[in-house]
């Protein structure tokens, strides 16, 4: 059983790695790399959010707030105060972790959906602070961010790099960097899911009372996973800020939180690969639909509605079930 689990886990990760490696074969201009990089960043964010929503059954309506704090912390500290990006990112993550703990710990002792209300309020507060403290954050018009660098080596999507004699653009480098981060994010998430913490979480999702009866400290585990998912958002927010080079308070807005939740629900709650698919679809649709112009918004809404009506469990789990069913039928026919 355990061996099986391990294999499944590794298999998914290997498939994802292969996809990340092979996808560039279908790219024919830097814009595709640009888009794919963003998809990877958002996918990693929702992989973290999924731990909370899909596994612990708690809804955060302020996750873009954490994303925004990460992004703005990195932007302000590297830009205005000259910190180096990597340590700044980690400090931002610690700040966000503390914030999430402060908000989550008392709230998650209560039963029910109090966390959604608390995070909703927190998200709004963060967005308002970013908007109003113009001297620090540039206000509603946003601020520019320095490129990412690791140990003095700068990663900018407009530079040219060469490795082992191969010349490639910064957009390609960013794509593989973001792809790598996504793999790490998935690997960590999958490990959490299959650890005692993950099992405790699923028991909370199933029945909180039953979980308590068998001695699971439910509020502790819920707070823990809330912090973990907030840290995911913060780190990816920092990465996104460095990647895009310019950020606006919209990143931390309520709409953005809804987009993140939608990615999770659309792709398939409690399915790590499902939420990645959700991020892909939600980030790709506006670009694909851009050619329809004024019909864009209508089609976007229609697609989301139809998906939720006919695939209430989300894209990935539904497709997975369909495939499994077909396989079973085939083997039945053969038998």
């Amino acid at each position, binding site marked *: 059983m355990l061996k099986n689990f391990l294999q499944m886990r590794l*298999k998914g990760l*290997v*498939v994802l790695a*292969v*996809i990340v490696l*092979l*996808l560039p*074969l*279908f*790219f*024919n*201009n*830097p*814009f*595709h790399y*640009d*888009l794919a990089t*963003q998809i990877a960043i958002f996918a990693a964010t929702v992989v973290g959010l999924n731990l909370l929503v899909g596994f612990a059954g708690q809804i955060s309506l302020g996750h873009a707030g954490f994303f925004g704090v990460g992004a703005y912390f990195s932007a302000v500290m590297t830009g205005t105060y000259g910190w180096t990006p990597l340590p700044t990112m980690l400090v931002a993550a610690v700040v966000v972790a503390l914030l999430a703990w402060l908000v989550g710990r008392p709230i998650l002792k209560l039963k029910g959906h109090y966390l959604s209300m608390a995070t909703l309020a927190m998200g709004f507060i963060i967005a308002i602070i970013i*908007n*109003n403290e*113009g001297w620090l954050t540039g*206000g*509603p*018009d*946003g601020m*520019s961010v320095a490129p990412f660098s690791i140990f003095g080596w700068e990663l*900018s999507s*407009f530079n040219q790099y060469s490795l082992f004699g191969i010349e490639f653009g910064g*957009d390609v480098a960013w794509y593989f960097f973001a792809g790598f981060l996504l793999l790490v994010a998935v690997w960590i998430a999958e490990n959490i899911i299959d650890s005692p913490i993950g099992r405790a979480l699923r028991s909370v999702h199933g029945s909180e009372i039953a979980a308590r009866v068998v001695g699971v400290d439910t509020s502790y585990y819920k707070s823990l996973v809330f912090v973990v998912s907030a840290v995911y958002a913060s780190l990816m927010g920092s990465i996104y800020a460095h990647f*895009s*080079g*310019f*950020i*606006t308070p*919209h*990143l931390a807005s309520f709409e953005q939180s809804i987009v993140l939740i939608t990615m999770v629900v659309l792709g398939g709650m409690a399915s790590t*690969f499902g939420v990645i698919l959700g991020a*892909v679809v939600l980030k*790709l649709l*506006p*670009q*694909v639909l*851009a*050619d329809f*112009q*004024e019909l*864009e*918004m209508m089609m976007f809404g229609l697609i989301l509605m139809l998906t939720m009506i006919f695939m209430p469990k989300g894209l990935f789990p539904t*497709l997975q079930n369909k*495939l499994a069913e077909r396989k079973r039928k085939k083997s039945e026919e053969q038998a």
Partner: protein
Amino acid sequence: MSKKILRRAGFLAATLAASIFTGAQAAEPIKIGSFLSVTGPASFLGDPELKTLELYVERINAVGGVIGRPLELVHYDDAGDASAARNFASRLVRSDRVDIIVGGSTTGATMAAVPLIEQARMPFISLAGAVVITDPVKKWVFKTPQSDRAAAERVLQDMKSHGITKIGLISGTGGFGRSGREQTLALVGKMGMEIVADVTYSPSDTDMTAQLTRIRNTPGVEAVFNFGFGQSPAIVTRNYAQLGIDLPFYQSHGVASDRFLDLLGDAGEGLRLPASPLLVPDSLPNSDPQKAVVTSYKKLYEERWNMQVSTFGGYAHDGLMLAVEAIEKAGSTDREAVRKALESIQGYVGVTGVFNMSSTDHNGLSADSFRILEVKNGKWKLIN
């Protein structure tokens, strides 16, 4: 399992490639790229801008295009979201490979796209207001609307000419109001004036009586100046009338539209603001160099779209015309040549003003390009 996922991924990537990769072969037309806030909260900017671009691209193509090549407009709707604007700018630069970009309805959208456009070395004419876009000067970025600094300067000039030196400032906390407030605060000292009251309101507020009462109760206030955008300035104006404050009242160029007049009713009598001559084409003296351009634009736009022309569409008119002028001057679409040509444009008469670009001024408009208008009997009246 893995095979299926792979197949699915292949399919996904193929749809991605097929749908996004739209036309790169035909090198003949000159591609004008644009990202505008056609829908969403800033649609009152983006909608007339897009209509103007479409109108003039049609007209230019009807008479044979520019340097013998037709124009092709590639445009996207960023819905007022700065990250979407950045992505569409990326698509214009990297996938559509346009020759020049005219767009960016809001300052946020423009600034989000700027780092990318600067590094891609693409001439870019922004249609957004704030002074940060062209100050400090960015090599590849130009803009057609007067900056908020010019608007503040024009208002303060007018106040000073009436002997007013002590001002009560009220401003919105949105991007436009905030930037305008900072510019005003920076200018008053230089002009020997003084802000005696400085209050703000949130763009979502529905009543500003409290702020206005504070200004009224401040001793020494000689005039009130509101810097805001959207619905709020109309509310401020109505509250102002309700409170019966009889000090001279100034608004910014952000509300200079006929729709704003409709919102006011008769609460706006005596209100003054700096605006584009587009609002008062008939009152312009015949000697005014802009008269011909302004009347022709107004007529064409209103015939084609059957709706009232707006100042914001005028920014797009000037943006496109400057781009065309620069390409003609450069004789090619070579980016560096076009950029140089843009920088060297002198005395170009547009709807918004007369443009005198230089390597240190990528806006090219002075504060004088604003006309001071006053509301008289529910209509705009040209003061000077």
